[in-house]
């Protein structure tokens, strides 16, 4: 069923709706998705939300989220839910999960970390609860409380 909020931001026939993004992080999610998508991309910011107070929505036509992109969205917006739309209807609704191991997704801000000096993909481990987590670099072992800033 189409929600009133969804109608306000241009109903799509098929694609993906990323809902329950904490405000004002929609544009950060758009950054992750990339604006060179084939279909139309619409953004709604500051919708009222019971759970979050305020939430953002991002809708993308004809988009299938790869696991790599889902993981990145999860880091920025761990409360987000993903709705898959087909023929104007929500056919699947799923929460997103931050994986325990994050490989080659974040960059380590420590300039003396080996991942910034040698050719080696970054590797972080999630610590703490899924909705309120920090990450630790497997190499330099520094802990970061705002993982969204490491994308």
């Amino acid at each position, binding site marked *: 069923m189409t929600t009133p909020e969804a109608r306000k931001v241009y109903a799509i026939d098929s694609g993906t709706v990323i809902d329950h993004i904490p405000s004002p992080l929609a544009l950060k999610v758009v950054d992750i998705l990339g604006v060179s998508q084939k279909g139309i991309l619409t953004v709604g910011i500051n919708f009222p939300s019971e759970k979050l107070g305020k939430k953002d929505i991002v809708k993308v036509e004809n988009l299938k989220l790869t696991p790599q992109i889902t993981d990145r969205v999860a880091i920025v917006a761990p409360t987000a839910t993903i709705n898959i739309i087909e023929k104007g209807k929500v056919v699947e609704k799923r929460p997103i999960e931050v994986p325990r191991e994050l490989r080659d997704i974040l960059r380590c801000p420590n300039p003396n970390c080996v991942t910034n000096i*040698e050719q080696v993909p970054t590797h972080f481990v999630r610590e703490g609860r899924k909705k309120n987590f920090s990450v630790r670099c*497997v190499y330099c*072992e520094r802990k970061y409380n705002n993982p969204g800033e490491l994308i």
Partner: protein
Amino acid sequence: MEMKNRSIVSIRDFSKDEIEQIVDKSLEVKSGKYSGALEGKVLATLFFEPSTRTRLSFEGAMVAMGGRVIGFADPNISSTKKGESLADTIKTVTGYCDVIVMRHHIEGAARLASQVASVPVINAGDGANQHPTQTFLDLVTIKEELGRLEELRVGLMGDLKYGRTVHSLAVALSHFHTNFVFISPPSLRMPADVKEELKEAGIKFHEVTEAEQSPEAMDVLYVTRIQKERFADFQEYEKVAGVYRLTPNSLSGPCKNAKIMHPLPRVDEISEEMDSSPNAIYFRQAHNGIPTRQTLLGLVTGAIQ
């Protein structure tokens, strides 16, 4: 205990049980039980950053147990100067030896080396990150001197912000229901992430600026040097330099029975008159580097079970 081929990169990689077994094994090695166990083994010491005492301790440990040593102590003569990647250096050296000991100024270098080497890698310090063999020898010394690791009252004093030794020791002791007192100038307090980690492990700590302010008597007082090289601003260093100086007269109140430890080198935070005090155990602590490193070298090469 099966540790053959396992790298020793960080104290975080070890469970409480493993730490206890390594400490107990080190005390057995110290008693002479495994003499000659490293015969026929070759150690490669790769010191991309100079460190005389750590290198000598590893080399001494290997030779005294019958092993041989190859390696370099000056990064200017290694192939990294020619632009070789660290991974390639390690992949090459791995064919020349049974175990690698590496010190590098880049944080995480030892982890990377352990991933590409086909022999175990022992981290002898990676920048400001980890120096796990120092932590093990600290624990061996505490166990030897006090007979236990559980439920001790431990004061950590000096540069708690930049001192990697105290960070790793705090993390290791968090397995053992330690009561901590952190003694430092306000600008050099224990970092928030270490304190958070201790809280999550249910560990109690107090933060004070003078040892006498400790709310209870200490079993161990671990002193660290305030490291000049860590300060970008010399004026900031001058504000805190020489702020602590332990003398035999300091051994009163909560410090009265405390065993005094220090990773060395010291500058002026412990007076030389303290050396003859029965409380001073920092030189015995340094000497424990030999049996502790022999144990680790023996375990990862399979020479000690």
